[in-house]
């Protein structure tokens, strides 16, 4: 038995070698940090390192939860991700259906190209654009408001405004990418079904409701499941670039990821952000496993793994 698998291993030695680079990189950059979560139970200091820092049990977690931060950042992370999921999915599907129904090739191509453009720029550039649009003194939006006699809005001093701005900015960047995926799903649907529905006298709304939408449900489900699995992982780039360290806005914009990063940067005590990170990873893991398990119970084909 052992001799045989040894023989197979020898036969597969080149295949092992071909896996080796990816294997080593994943061990180093993914699995070793997983072992590093033990830091969450330490009073970690740079000077002492991982093996020299004292163990403090659950003290870091106790601090994180009793400071009130845990609730605030968890709530924000969760609610923003729900808002992103609902808004993005709805708009992306709507756009995909609309563009798919439009006959003009030229119009399709041009709009697709423009809608995807925001996906290609970095979040730093997005933050520069946001500054140009929103800043109080010279922002485009405030100037336009002023022309029409409105009062300028200082969004950088108004935490509530970001509850609307962040989902919109996120949508702006994601709309093209998502709708192209849905368009591909629509293009893959059976054209005959659509034609026969038309022959049978279904109007366009009935056809979309009874044929197109049910047809893309597998795609919607997969993308939604993936998003639900990430529901406790915030979009760090979006929140950090849009809000930065503006303390005034943090009550409505601080997510787990930005909180961990700020603690990492501003405190010498690393056990605490490590504990927050472990909390986040554990929550994500449980969510993914639970969602996948439930989906498996309902319909095995739709489960992710």
């Amino acid at each position, binding site marked *: 038995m052992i001799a045989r*698998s040894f023989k197979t291993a020898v036969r*597969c030695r*080149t*295949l092992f070698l*071909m*896996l080796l680079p*990816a294997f080593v*990189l*994943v061990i*180093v*950059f993914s*699995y*070793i*940090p*997983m072992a*590093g*979560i033990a830091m969450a139970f330490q009073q970690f200091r*740079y000077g002492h390192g991982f093996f020299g820092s004292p163990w403090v049990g659950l003290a870091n977690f106790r601090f994180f939860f009793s400071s009130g931060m845990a609730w605030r950042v968890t709530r924000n992370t969760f609610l923003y991700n729900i808002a992103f999921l609902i808004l993005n999915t709805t708009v992306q599907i709507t*756009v995909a259906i*609309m*563009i798919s129904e*439009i006959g003009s090739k030229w119009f399709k191509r041009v709009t697709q*190209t*423009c809608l995807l*453009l*925001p996906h*290609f*720029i*970095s979040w*730093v550039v997005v*933050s*520069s*654009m946001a500054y*140009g649009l929103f800043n109080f*003194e*010279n922002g*485009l939006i*405030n*100037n336009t408001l002023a022309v029409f006699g409105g009062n300028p809005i200082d969004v950088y001093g108004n935490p509530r405004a970001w509850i609307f701005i962040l989902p919109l900015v996120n949508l702006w960047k994601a*709309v093209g990418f998502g709708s*192209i*995926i849905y368009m*591909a799903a629509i293009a*893959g649907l059976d054209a005959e079904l659509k034609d026969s529905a038309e022959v049978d006298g279904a109007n*366009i*709304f009935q056809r979309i409701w009874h044929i197109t939408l049910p047809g893309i449900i597998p795609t919607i489900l997969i993308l939604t499941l993936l998003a639900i699995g990430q529901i406790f992982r915030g979009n760090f*780039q979006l929140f950090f*670039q849009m809000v930065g360290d503006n303390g005034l806005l943090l009550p409505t914009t601080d997510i787990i990821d930005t909180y*961990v990063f700020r603690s*990492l940067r501003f405190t010498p005590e*690393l056990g605490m952000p490590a504990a*927050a990170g*472990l909390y*986040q*990873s554990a929550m*994500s*893991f449980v969510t*993914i*496993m639970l969602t996948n398990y439930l989906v498996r119970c309902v319909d095995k084909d739709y489960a992710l*793994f």
Partner: protein
Amino acid sequence: MAKAKRSKGREYSADRITFLAFSYTVITLLTIACLIPFLMIISSSFTSERSILIYGYSLWPRDFSLESYRLSLANPNVILRAYWNTIVVTVVGTVFGVFVNSMAGYVLTRKDFPWRNLFAYFFFFTTLFSGGLVPYFILVSNTLGLRNNLLALILPGAVSVWNMLLVKGFMSGIPFEITESAKMDGAGDFTVYLRFIMPLAKPVIATIALFSALAFWNDWFNTMLFITDERLFTLQYFLQRLLSSVRNIRAIMDEAGVDIPTLPVQSMKMSLTIIVTGPIIFLYPFIQRYFIQGLTLGSVKG
């Protein structure tokens, strides 16, 4: 509206016309909304500072001026250096990453490799659970000592499990007989991958190359974490620093020996954004077709 329009011999019913009219309007408005911020930075970068201070940012340069570009490019070495670093990281990272991911992805499709599911799960698990930012930071900067080393920007992003699975999905569609017959003719596993499989997998290789190049080019987070030496800054982080503080813009001016009492900060922010984004916008029309193809490829394969 009720009157049916004829096109290509097909009757357009009233509900269809209503829907199409609505669709054209919505999509056109969305497209404009997507383009407005781009138009704003382009226009504002060509506007004089005085005009911005009085009228604010606009969609059309009210008072055309190249002053902000003149000053932004007064010290071109700093920008060129950031460009060079970004290009090195992007090219090396993409080539290395595509090689590593496609090779691993191929092995995972080999039916005669008994441990393929075990390894697939080993890779996949990293998408389910992670150690978080803090251990990752300590590992790269302290344990591996990659602080102020471009490798810190290349190595962590090289393996992408999603790209690997995309390759695996595509290569599963390539008949196993090709591998078998090539091996029968005496080719080794690596030769089979390089000579026979890779040419057939061109579409997926182009896709993951594009995905990963975009990720490397637009990355600023790893630079922020691991690079403190200004000579190693990448473009996006370079821009972030200039946007976040006027002091950083002034420092570059001092280095260039430009001495002006008031910098046109508002217009310079926009021209610097254009200078950093320019190549992507310029390349975009050429690469977006492949990008869309790749997305379609990925969604069909699941």
